[in-house]
Every structure is written in structure tokens, then in C-alpha cells.
């Protein structure tokens, strides 16, 4: 806990200036912590997640990690060397059955042991949707607190990757945000990913962490080597501003940071960029404070428009901040079609579309 308060203090010194690499539709903006305070190491996101799981398995002797192909390191190399270090009875492959994996994980967590279950791609989570929504989310409620699967964490790679097409690019956070009883988080980079995963593992509620797969290699930051947790249910204000609030999560945060830069340069608009981090429960207070301050809100996400999580944010903000809003809340999202194969560049809410929408609400 002390570590997390330290982190919050340090995060106020975040500078996002050095641009790492330009990949597909976004440019990565690394989070930089204040220098010289803690022992750091340059890691990309899958290394940070690997580190988090290593620490999690070390600190909790009941922790198990399982999923499809995690034994040899996983398809994204997040579980490299863990089987060698902790043994086959703690890090093991499951057969190809997502519903089985989810049900099994819930059972493990019910006994109090920590379960870290990996669903290989978010697009495959649907067979386990029933288990997560009907069992995991409702266990504590229906048993009156007698049983709960709080020591359960799902790790699910999600999001567009440039060539994923229909079934390797989906962002299903909206489906799970609709289920009370769950926690849903999405990191934007290695530092966040490590902290969030450790927080999810320790959190006494079933958590799902959706990891944007395109950031596994693209996102490189100086990550603290010790064990630390990020606060769940809190969003991060990455850049302070006065004119417009830009809200996003995961990969989209980096698109919005670039849009903020462009807006400053081209239109002299000061944008406040917020990473939502926690989709369920989301930080209503910080977001509403920001909306009240700027009066204009733009929400961006890769998932389709209708019933995307942006609709929940928009509905809530307009209810709480109606009189302080200067323009309708704008959502820039993926289209209402299945995630396309060759049309991906036109589907994603890239910086051009976001900037156009920004101009629209500023000139409202």
C-alpha cells in the first residue's frame, strides 16, 4: 500500500515526450517516472507482465497460472521461463476449451487459491462468457458472501494489431462492463500493466485484464523492478488541459496523446488526456471533474460504436455535468461492422478522425 501511494506521488511527475516508434495507426508515448528514485529496468509490455506474474507466483504460494500454450512461454511470450521456475504443477497448459478454463479457474479461486487464467485472444472469450458472467460475477452475491472467486484474474490479449482481421482484433470490454461483480482493467504500457496485474491478483474480486496485444512489443518503458500495484478503479490524467477532455484506454490513449499534440500545434487547443485504466468500476469523480472543467468531451475506443463503452461514459457525463457542457459529447469509435480484414485502416479511430471530431466539438 505504501508503494502505491509512492507511485501516485511519482505519477504526478509524468512526462510523456520521448516518442519510441511509429507502428500502424499509433505512435507510442512512454510513461516516464521521475528519475533516480527506484530501481528500474527497460522492459516491453510482455516482459513487464512476465515480471508481474513472476512476482505474483513468488509472493503467493497458492498461485497457479494456466491457459492454452502458456507452458512454453505463451504465444506472446508473457509466461516465459515461469514453468521452469515454478514447476509444472503451478504453470501448466490447458486443453483447448475456454469454457473449461474459465469454469476451472472459478473453481480454483473458490477454494481460496489464486488463479491466473489466460484466454489466448479476447475473440475466444465467448465460450467462457457464461462462466464469467453467470458464475464468477455472481458467486459472492448469491452465496451471501460465503463463497467468492475473488482470487481470480483473467489475462486476455485484445485489440487491433494491424493484421488480425475478424477474430484476432476484437475489444470486448463493453460486454463485461455490463456485468456487476467483475473488475475490468486495460493497461496502456508496461509500467501500468505490471502494476495492474499485481493489483488484480491481490484484489479480492474477480478481475479481467485486457492487454492490448499490439503494445506487447511496441511499448517499452523503464519499469520498476520491485513489486508494486496500481490503484484499481482510478483513471490517470496524463496531460492537464483546459479546453477539451480526451478519454481513451489501451492503445487508443497513445492516439489521443498524438491528437492532443496536433491540436496544440495546429489549433492552439489545450487538451486534457485521460487514460480510463479501469473500465469497471470506472472513475466517475475524476472524469466528471474534468468534464466540468473543460466543458467538452471526446471519447475514443476501437470497439464498435453502438453500445461501446463510450456510450456509458457519455450517458453518465451528460447526466452529471449537463449544465457545464459546451458541446455534445463526441464518440470516435470503430464502425458498426465486424472487424474487417483489408479495411482495418479505415475502421480504426485513428488520429485523423479524432482530430476532425475535436474540431467539430470545439467549433460547436
Amino acid at each position, binding site marked *: 500500500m505504501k508503494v502505491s501511494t509512492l507511485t501516485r506521488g511519482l505519477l504526478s511527475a509524468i512526462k510523456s515526450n520521448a516518442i519510441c516508434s511509429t507502428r500502424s495507426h499509433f505512435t507510442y508515448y512512454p510513461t516516464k517516472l521521475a528519475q533516480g528514485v527506484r530501481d528500474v529496468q527497460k522492459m516491453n509490455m510482455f516482459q513487464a507482465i512476465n515480471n508481474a506474474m513472476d512476482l505474483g507466483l513468488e509472493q503467493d504460494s497458492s498461485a497457479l497460472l494456466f491457459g492454452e500454450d502458456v507452458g512454453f512461454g505463451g504465444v506472446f511470450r508473457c509466461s516465459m521461463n515461469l514453468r521452469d521456475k515454478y514447476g509444472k504443477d503451478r504453470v501448466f*497448459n490447458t486443453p483447448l476449451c475456454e469454457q473449461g478454463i474459465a469454469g476451472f479457474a472459478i473453481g480454483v479461486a473458490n477454494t481460496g487459491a489464486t488463479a491466473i487464467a489466460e484466454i489466448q485472444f479476447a475473440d*475466444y472469450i465467448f465460450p467462457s462468457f457464461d462462466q464469467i458472467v453467470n458464475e464468477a460475477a455472481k458467486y459472492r452475491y448469491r452465496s451471501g458472501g460465503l463463497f467468492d472467486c475473488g482470487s481470480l484474474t483473467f489475462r486476455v490479449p485484445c485489440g487491433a494489431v494491424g493484421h488480425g482481421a475478424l477474430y484476432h482484433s476484437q475489444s470486448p470490454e463493453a460486454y463485461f462492463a455490463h456485468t456487476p461483480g467483475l473488475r475490468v482493467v486495460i493497461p496502456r504500457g508496461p509500467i501500468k500493466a505490471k502494476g495492474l496485474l499485481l493489483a488484480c491478483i491481490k484484489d479480492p474480486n474477480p478481475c479481467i485484464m485486457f492487454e492490448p496485444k499490439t503494445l506487447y512489443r511496441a511499448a517499452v518503458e523503464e519499469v520498476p523492478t520491485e513489486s508494486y500495484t496500481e490503484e484499481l478503479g482510478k483513471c490517470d490524467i496524463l496531460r492537464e488541459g483546459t479546453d477539451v477532455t480526451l478519454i481513451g484506454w489501451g492503445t487508443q490513449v497513445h492516439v489521443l496523446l498524438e491528437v492532443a499534440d496536433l491540436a496544440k500545434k495546429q489549433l492552439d487547443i489545450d487538451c486534457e488526456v485521460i487514460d480510463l485504466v479501469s473500465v469497471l468500476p470506472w472513475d466517475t469523480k475524476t472524469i466528471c471533474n474534468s468534464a466540468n472543467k473543460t466543458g467538452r468531451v471526446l471519447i475514443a475506443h476501437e470497439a464498435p460504436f453502438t453500445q461501446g463503452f463510450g456510450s456509458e461514459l457519455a450517458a453518465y457525463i451528460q447526466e452529471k455535468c449537463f449544465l457545464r457542457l459546451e458541446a455534445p459529447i463526441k464518440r470516435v469509435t470503430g464502425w458498426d461492422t465486424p472487424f474487417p480484414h483489408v479495411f482495418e485502416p479505415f475502421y480504426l479511430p485513428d488520429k485523423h478522425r479524432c482530430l476532425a471530431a475535436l474540431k467539430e466539438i470545439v467549433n460547436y
Partner: protein
Amino acid sequence: MPGMYRDALKLLSAHMRQQVSRMLQRCIGCTAAKLPRPLAPGQPETSIAEQKPVVQEVRLVRIAMDFKLHKLELGPDTLVALTALEAALYLRQLLAIRRLEAASAQLYKERLVRGFCHLSTGQEACAVGLCAALRKEDNLVAGYRIHGLAYLMGATAVGVLSELAGKSTGCAQGKGGSMHMYAPNFYGGNGIVGAQVSLGAGIALANKYRETGGVCFALYGDGAANQGQIFECFNMAQLWKLPMVFVCENNNYGMGTSAWRASSNTDYYTRGDFLPGVWVDGQDVLAVRSAARFAIQYAQQRGPLIMELCTYRYAGHSMSDPGTSYRSREEVQLVRQRQDPISRFRKVCLDISILSEQQLRIIDQNVHDEMEKAIQAARHDAELPLSHLGSDVYSHSCTEDKLRGVFGHNLEHSKAVCVKN
């Protein structure tokens, strides 16, 4: 079973008749020069198709490896007839799939193919043998390793390679990509593991209801064999006696996990419990064809059946998987040397003298030319225009004119018109 022998006898008797008529012609003073002759060495060759087959050569071949049966007394034929035309056709198809996969890999490395690309190199015999047994009324539904199956079911090489490259001449007009290829009677092409088997059960039910006499083959792999919905389908199919064949292409690895690490029972042909099953050597085209023919008959008369094709893939799970982190290179090499489906079939053809070396060369060249043309088409054809971002989301009649939730592009609901190759 008697049908097979009847066919063989028919062919043999035709052969006999030919021989007799030759003899008679000689007797009535016709010179040998006037008789039709087989190709002599050194004689200029024309393509197989142009050559008039002198005699419909047929041979009887014994299947190398026995079938294993589960809850069955009688199994598929172990002695099968093979005609010269069939041999040439199967070999051509085997080579075509091998070349097609090589072309796909080539295009992927050139980054013309984006997305995921799952090659079936090494599993050609399963596809060729299955499709050799299919009749016009039968259907096929499979997972994602389907380039070869799509090609055999009518997608053409241009259709497959262009689809990979996302061009409008692809078999799904470029909207599906590697995993979503479709053709008449071939329902794809599915990315979600195991989902296709439930579809297959539905297709089989429709066949039964409409009395088409067709049988549905639902293909899945050893990894998918552990999905819950497969077992749900076993139950439904047996309960309602659906004309369906469950085909498990067991290539021993579910991506990075070996079959024996994923399944408590690796005898996938017995996994249906009360459903009868057949284990087939999947690297032998004739064995697969024999089993498929048997399965069609069984499915029509008695009900569902499981066929396990024991096969192997040389490439990794997909182009992003080198395929060596969970198995040794030596293992792959060993299978390539000893159990390669093309080498085995080629050897069989030569051993029984149903095809000559020269004919094999012509087939090779033929395949090479077809694939070259397809690669060029994949490279140079045009993609679908942007207006098709929103085509085929809904059927046109059921919703409003403009696509909801697509701003700025002003797209209407439309149907991607199939571009003829």
C-alpha cells in the same frame, strides 16, 4: 463393399474386351500399325488431357496400414481400385496443394498477405482423399487450415491466393482472408476453434430434413477435440441419427501443445463413446478415400461416424510460429522422409505402373503453371473499394438504407458482388 469390386470388375472386363477385340482385329487381317498404341519411349508427348487413353488402366491397391475400428464390425475397404485417371488427378491435386501452400508462404513473406496464415503442408492427403469421395450432394465444413480444401471444393488457385492477399478476385471477395474461404458445398473456413462442428450438425440436419441424401463432413483438429461443443454435437447427431461424419485431423499438435499433453484420451476416434469410429492413416490418399466412401455409406444408412485421420503438419501452426519450440526439427524431418503423402502416393503410382515418370513430370509442370498464374493474380488484382467496408453486414431488406454507426463514409447496406475469375 461389393460396389467397389463391381466397379473394379467392370473396368477389368472393359480391359478384357479391349484385348479380345485387338486379337480379333488381328485375325481379320488388320495390321498392328492401325491399332491404337500406348506411348512409346522417345515419342513426342502431349498433355495428359489431350492424350486419348488407350485403355482405362486400373489396378488394385492394398492399403498399407490397417484401419482401427471402434464399435464397428466391418470397416472400410482395404483393397481399393485405382484408375490411371484417378491417380493422375489425385497426384495433381496433392502437388497443387503443396505448391499452393508454398505460394501462400511466399506471399506472406513478401507481406502481401497480412493476417494469419495457417498452412496445411504435410496434410494434403487428408484433403485430397476426402474430396475424392465426396459426391455432388455432400457438404464440407472445416476449421482454419483450409487453403487446400477450399481449392479442392472449387475455389480455384486464384480464388485462394487472391483471398489471402485481400483482393476482390478472392473467393470471399477479399473480405475474409486466410481463414474464411468458401465454395459451393464448402461452408468454410472458421476462425473459432470447434465452432464449425456445431454448424456441421445443423447442415446435416438440413440435409436429412430436405432428403437431399447428402452427408456433411465436419472437420476439426486434435486441439478442437477438447472443446465442449464437439461433445454436444456427438450427442445431438447420434440422438437424431444425423447423416454426419466427424473428421478429426489429428496432426498431433494443437498449436504449441502436443496431443498427449492436451487430451486424456488421444484415440480421437473413440471419443464419441457410443458413436462408432475409424482410425485412418491420414498420409495415405487411398486410405482416406476408402474411409470417406465407407463413412458416406454408413452415415446415410446408420447415422453419424467419427473418422480420425492421423496426419502431420510440417509448418508451424501459422506463419508466426516457427514450429520448433515445441517439437524437434528431427521429428519433422523424419516424417517428411518416411511419411510424406506425396512421396508415398508417387511411389505407389510408380510401383504399380499406373503412371510413368514422364506423366509425373507433365503433371508437375501443369501445377507449376497454374500456381504461377494464381500468384500473379494475387499480386496484381485490385482490392475491393472502400464502399465495401459496410457491405454484407445485414441482408439488404431487413434494415434501413444507410449503415448505422458508420460516419463520414456515408455507406449504404450493400452486397459485395462476386467478381468472376
